[in-house]
């Protein structure tokens, strides 16, 4: 055993990075969907339009987490 190494953790740090990257978009998507549900409850007739907007918002938010997956694959 190398005397200088007291403890060592091997593996890929990208997994931890992915976990961290999932926090923000998770909260963001929660807010988006929650607000859409609120808005739909207020004005049910706008449901279709609100849903399209919701999906666009989710797509923009979700890409951050997906970038984390890709980053892990690229630099992992």
């Amino acid at each position, binding site marked *: *055993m190398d005397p*200088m*190494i007291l403890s060592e953790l*091997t593996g890929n740090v*990208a*997994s931890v990075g992915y976990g961290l990257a999932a926090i923000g978009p998770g909260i963001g998507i929660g807010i988006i969907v929650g607000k859409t549900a609120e808005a739909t409850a207020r004005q049910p007739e706008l449901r279709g339009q609100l849903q*399209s907007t919701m999906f666009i918002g989710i797509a923009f938010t979700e890409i951050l987490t*997906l970038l984390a997956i890709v980053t892990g694959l690229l630099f*992992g």
Partner: protein
Amino acid sequence: MWSPSRHPGSPRLSSESLLCFPRCSTADHGAIPRSARPLIDHPERTRVVHRRTHGGRTRIGPDQECRPRPARWRRTTRPREIELNTADLSPTLYAEGESLFHVPTLDEFFPDAILFGGTWFEFNRVQLVRLIVLAVVLIVMCVLASRAKLVPGRSQSIVELLIEFVNGTIIKNTLGLREGKAFAPFLMTLFFFLLAMNLAGVVPGLNLAGTSVIGLPLLAALWTFVVYISAGVKKRGIAGYLKHETAPPGLPKPIYLLLVPIEFLQVVLIRWASLTIRLLANMVAGHIMMVVFIGLTQGLLLSGTWLVAVSPFAGALAIGIYGFEIFVAALQAFIFTILAAVYIQMATADEH
């Protein structure tokens, strides 16, 4: 599936050198079965391990150098590597009793060539899946279109439902029916194409989405890029279009210094790159997830220990994931199409 014969250069596996499922606390070789030792002491493996953990930024000891020193590393006893890394291209088998669980790697998406191996025109399973899906979609749509009736039959009404969905939900909510009429063929083609390619991932027998390798998402995204750029340029001219996209009016002057480069990058790179990555990452992650759950179910079922009792739950979960992947396939086709429509709308919209 991984098989030893397909990776002749891989030193990792013979039938008796299967690693146990890793336990994080093992700090010496004592916990490793004797049969697994040649695997760790193999020169090829030590070289790879050395480079990955100590050649880069995670070097710890002060007396270590970046230069590989395989002879030294072969001697030292080191904590076992935790090999649960999707970027690791050398597949590892984890054995739990009798069961064999194949940990999926990115090799899943690069199967062996069927035809023309090693050339630029390599033809493998992914291309085969794409060709089959393309043929099916083209033939079905041509046949349905050639015998379209006023009172639709069952298959015709399914297609009409989808077209109505694209028209009513995507185009009407973003471009507007009148403005969007010029782009309707593009958006419908995109939607049907991506839907069929994504659904190939859950069709038994095909089992691999045509969009799970970067070529196809990139093609679709670049097509979208060309369409929205040309729509904007056609309407305003190049300078007018760039001004319209990058410099929204009514902001304090210094803000533009910051805003214009960002918006420019957004238009020329981020939009189509994010379309590609979104679709690709979703399909890759979905496929890996299905492989893990179905493979784990099989591994538990064939384990021959008390773990068999857990396998029904794992199987139920696998079926759940399967259903979720059908949903994701449809959702990603929808999101791709609606974002394409939004980008076109951004390029062509009049300022209010």
